[in-house]
């Protein structure tokens, strides 16, 4: 090897701790970028293919009344419909045979599994098609129920009795209810099993595909509106429709947005590691000025020197890539597989993503080069005279070190402060003062270190805040569902009658009768945009606590007025409270005034509220209702479940035609779970920034100690014992840590707002109220103290270990 390159090589291995620090900090950033970019590529490719491969329904229609094969055949023959399957979907409470906790499942009855062509199931374990009186579970059920293939599943029937069916298989269902945050897990049976569950052998849902324009949202909703209209006309009342494209997973944009957030954090990590590189190279070049001078003296030109140090930087990058590329490839696939698992679909097989590698290589080489360019260019320009005169500060040109005048200003301040404190009887220990002075000696380095730690801390804290923000919002959404039990009947009953009965049940506190209207929201041209269900609680109901964005909530004297969820803005982006919306009500086009706009989980469709007082009049059902909201004494899940059970039996026993009695909102648990997964990823990224931050601190402390080797030797020569030297160095690290904590507190505020805005837009499609928590601050404070102690103990130990002779020989 030529001596010049051999020098570069030796510089690389000479100080292993330094090299490792730089290499790892680059590797962490490059690794995160690789994982996220790779996962992004895999997911965006496989998700749509895998989703489309299961032939997702473009149209899902839920009907209020049951229908039979005749209706289904008519739908199949309708214009624009390629294929349609009828299913019966019901919420049934189930439990494992040996357990007493009930879980609500969405039980789906198929006509014929062999002929299933829409929303295909993917086999996972055992059979994927149940026979008569058998059940197959969706894999997600296993998260809620401790069962396996071969076990019996106990179903709770409408009359209070139970029925056990054997579990014959587990499947994955990537399409049904995809993207529905609040959907309960699925179980599958045949239509022929329905009688065993005391259910009619009739359908209540249609899953259909369209002939053309399978990825054209407008076309699909036109077809849907057409089908719905036809069904309604023939007496099959549609109460809800959902549409989706064939080649785009409904959550694709959410996943992309979340990967985007993670990517942004990854870029931040890279950014932070680049400040460590800049710091390290600055220190390294300063130590190497004499070498540079010597090389120039014997014929080295600027460019040659520059290339040597650039080669050193590239070596850091290459070493980092050796670690980060294989790990990043694995991580990318792991993350993709995890997301796929959450979305119940299969990846198309293990693979590496060349694009992600390219990005990693680009970043791993370019970022250190850019970060190190300034110190290296400055270093390679140093004149021979300056470099070897042995007195760099005296030489002409700008001083490489900070000017002595600043230091004396600091010293003056320090002296004055010490005197002032001493007057008040406060004596600052000498080693601590030395630490403080050391801390501020290298201003540029200190700034970069503080920057890194502060960013890491601010992100870390912000993630905790975002976590409570999300949960707070879920909680707020729950306030739309404040009733503990919802009781639906098959026919309207007088409100006072139901109240009278319900109040006889111990634990029932309040009963409200609600009505509803199914209308269509129209485009300005009169075509149907989407089904709009209007809920009609009594105007003064305490059971809905809306998060109003603008306007007001419903009043009892409102007529043809609604409060509507923000999702309406996708059709009418400029809609304001006070504007009119065209609705199709009972087959007639009407203009309804919007009195208020409120927040709701964006994907759950458009929802509107109107006062019961007016809707009852429209429905011709004065003082009656189909749906009742019941408040119980206790509001915990167990009480709610128990009360739902009791009320169910009670109403049936008293001859009411009960459809179902549902407790609270189990589905919100599902939503919280998926949010926690998201928060976990954010936390991992935050931890990575913290790790890079503390590596930066360790690097800084290492450099500080190295540069002060002589000073430490003198301290020992005049009798300072190891523990004092250790304490000086550790105190210095702590001071930096604490300063960065103070700055992180401030910076975490804008970060929290920004991050929760981005996350809520991605997940809820609407900005949400930001909430702060002390948790993140406390954890970070603990962490930063520990991290800075560790980051300074290692260099401090090295410093203490140096012998006086070594130290004084050090140049």
């Amino acid at each position, binding site marked *: 090897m*030529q*001596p*010049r390159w*051999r*020098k570069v090589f*030796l*510089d690389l291995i*000479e100080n292993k701790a330094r090299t490792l620090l730089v290499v790892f900090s680059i590797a962490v950033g490059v690794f995160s970028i690789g994982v996220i970019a790779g996962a992004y590529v895999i997911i965006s490719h496989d998700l749509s293919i895998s989703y489309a491969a299961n032939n997702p329904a473009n149209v899902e229609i839920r009907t209020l009344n049951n229908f039979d094969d005749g209706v289904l055949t008519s739908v199949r023959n309708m214009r624009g419909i390629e294929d349609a399957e009828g299913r019966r979907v019901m919420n049934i409470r189930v439990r494992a045979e040996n357990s007493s906790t009930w879980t609500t499942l969405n039980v789906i009855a198929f006509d014929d599994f062999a002929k299933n062509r829409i929303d295909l199931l993917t086999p996972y374990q055992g059979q994927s098609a149940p026979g008569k009186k058998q059940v197959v579970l969706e894999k997600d059920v296993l998260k809620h129920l401790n069962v396996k293939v071969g076990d019996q599943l106990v179903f709770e029937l409408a009359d209070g009795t139970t029925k056990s069916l054997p579990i014959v298989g587990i499947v994955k269902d990537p399409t049904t209810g995809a993207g529905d945050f609040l959907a309960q897990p699925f179980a599958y049976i045949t239509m022929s099993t329905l009688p065993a569950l005391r259910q009619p052998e009739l359908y209540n849902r249609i899953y259909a595909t369209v002939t053309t324009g399978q990825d054209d949202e407008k076309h699909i909703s036109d077809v849907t509106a057409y089908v719905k209209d036809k069904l309604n006309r023939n007496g099959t009342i549609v109460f809800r429709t959902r549409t989706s494209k064939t080649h785009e997973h409904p959550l694709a944009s959410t996943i992309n947005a979340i990967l985007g957030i993670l990517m942004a954090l990854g870029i931040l990590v890279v950014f932070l590691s680049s400040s460590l590189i800049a710091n390290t190279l600055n220190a390294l070049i300063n130590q190497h000025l*004499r*070498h540079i*001078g*010597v*090389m*120039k*003296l*014997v*014929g*080295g*030109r*600027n*460019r*040659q020197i520059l290339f040597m140090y650039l080669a050193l930087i590239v070596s850091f990058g290459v070493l980092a890539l050796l670690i980060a590329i294989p790990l990043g490839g694995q991580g990318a696939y792991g993350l993709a597989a995890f997301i796929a698992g959450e979305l119940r679909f299969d990846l198309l097989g293990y693979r590496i993503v060349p694009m992600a590698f390219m990005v990693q290589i680009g970043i791993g080489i370019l970022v250190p080069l850019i970060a190190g360019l300034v110190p290296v260019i400055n270093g390679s320009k140093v*004149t*021979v*005279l300056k470099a*070897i005169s*042995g007195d760099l500060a005296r030489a002409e040109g700008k001083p490489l070190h900070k000017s002595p005048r600043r230091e004396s200003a600091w010293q003056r301040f320090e002296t004055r402060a010490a005197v002032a404190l001493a007057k008040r009887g406060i004596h600052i220990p000498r080693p601590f003062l030395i630490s403080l002075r050391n801390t501020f000696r290298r201003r540029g380095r200190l700034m970069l270190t503080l920057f890194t730690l502060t960013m890491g801390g601010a992100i870390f804290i912000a993630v905790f805040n975002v976590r409570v923000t999300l949960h707070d919002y879920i909680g707020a959404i729950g306030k739309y569902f404040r009733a503990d039990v919802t009781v639906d009947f098959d026919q309207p009953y007088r409100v006072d009658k139901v109240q009278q009965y319900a109040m006889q049940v111990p634990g029932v506190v309040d009963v409200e009768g609600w009505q509803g209207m199914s209308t269509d929201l129209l485009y300005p041209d009169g075509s149907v945009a989407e089904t709009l269900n209007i809920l009609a609680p009594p105007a003064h109901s305490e059971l809905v606590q809306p998060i109003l964005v603008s306007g007001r909530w419903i009043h009892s004297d409102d007529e043809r007025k609604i409060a509507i969820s923000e999702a309406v803005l996708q059709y009418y982006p400029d809609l304001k409270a006070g504007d009119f919306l065209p609705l199709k009500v009972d087959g007639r086009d009407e203009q309804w005034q919007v009195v208020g706009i409120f927040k709701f989980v964006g994907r759950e469709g458009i929802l509107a509220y109107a006062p019961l007082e007016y809707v009852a009049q429209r429905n011709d059902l004065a003082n009656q209702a189909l749906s009742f909201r019941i408040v119980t004494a206790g509001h915990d899940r167990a009480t709610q479940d128990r009360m739902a059970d009791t009320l169910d039996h009670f109403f049936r026993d008293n001859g009411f035609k009960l459809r179902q009695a549902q407790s609270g909102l189990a589905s919100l648990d599902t939503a919280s779970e998926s949010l926690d997964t998201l928060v976990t990823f954010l936390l991992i990224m935050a931890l990575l920034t913290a790790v890079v931050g503390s590596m930066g601190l360790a690097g800084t402390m290492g450099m500080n100690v190295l540069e002060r080797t002589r000073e430490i030797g003198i301290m020992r020569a005049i009798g300072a014992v190891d523990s004092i030297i250790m304490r000086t160095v550790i105190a210095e690290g702590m001071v930096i840590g604490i300063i960065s904590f103070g700055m992180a507190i401030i910076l975490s505020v804008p970060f929290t707002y920004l991050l929760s805005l981005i996350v809520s837009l991605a997940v809820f499609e609407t900005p949400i109220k930001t909430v702060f928590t002390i948790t993140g601050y406390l954890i970070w404070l603990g962490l930063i103290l520990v991290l800075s102690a560790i980051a300074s103990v290692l260099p401090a130990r090295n410093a203490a270990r140096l012998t006086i002779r070594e130290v004084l020989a050090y140049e």
Partner: protein
Amino acid sequence: MKVSSSIIEVKNLTKVYSTEAGDFNALHDVNFQVKKGEFLGVIGKSGAGKSTLLNMITGVDHLTSGEVLVRANGHTVSVHQLDEDELALWRGQTLGVIFQSFQLLPMLTLVENVMMPMDLCGNFKPRESRERARELLALVELEDQMDKLPTQISGGQQQRVAIARALANDPPILVADEPTGSLDSVTADHIFDVFEHLVQDRGKTIIMVTHDNSLGPRFTRSLQIVDGEVVHLTEAGHRSERKRMK
């Protein structure tokens, strides 16, 4: 003597350092010439301006006024007209510089230190340069130590390595700033022997700075500096006189 016969020509050289305390005239109108094959001693007290003068000749520092001409390797160069890179390359090929504090690169072995100038100037192929470095180390009697690191040998040995390095690109001129300053007298004597050998047997021209007046007779010619002015310049010496050594 004719101007063209000199290898180095210093004309009206003045160097003023501007410091916070005001301007400082470190060299004042210095004029002299060095002939090929001379062993010129520059003698003066500490602070007289000797190092400043060497820095002007090597182009390491800028001059305030005057000119330094060097005629070597077939062309005449006005040192201070070169830009920094030209200067570095020219210096690498024309001048070997030796300091009191050796200035070896601590992480490289002795042979690698000697190879470094050849690598940077590109006069020799990599293979040749190792062979040549070995020969140069043999010249300073360190061939058997060539794979050691600088810290593993004595100061006198380090200075000999520095001399070998200065010879790496076979420059016609060696410039040494108090090369024996940090060595004991026996070791210093040995270094001196090496220089005399280079002048007599290899035809090198050497300028050596020292504050030691007693060394005067050992040079072919010597130049006395006091407060930045040349106060005494001995006439061209007689090489035959110096045959006493070796």
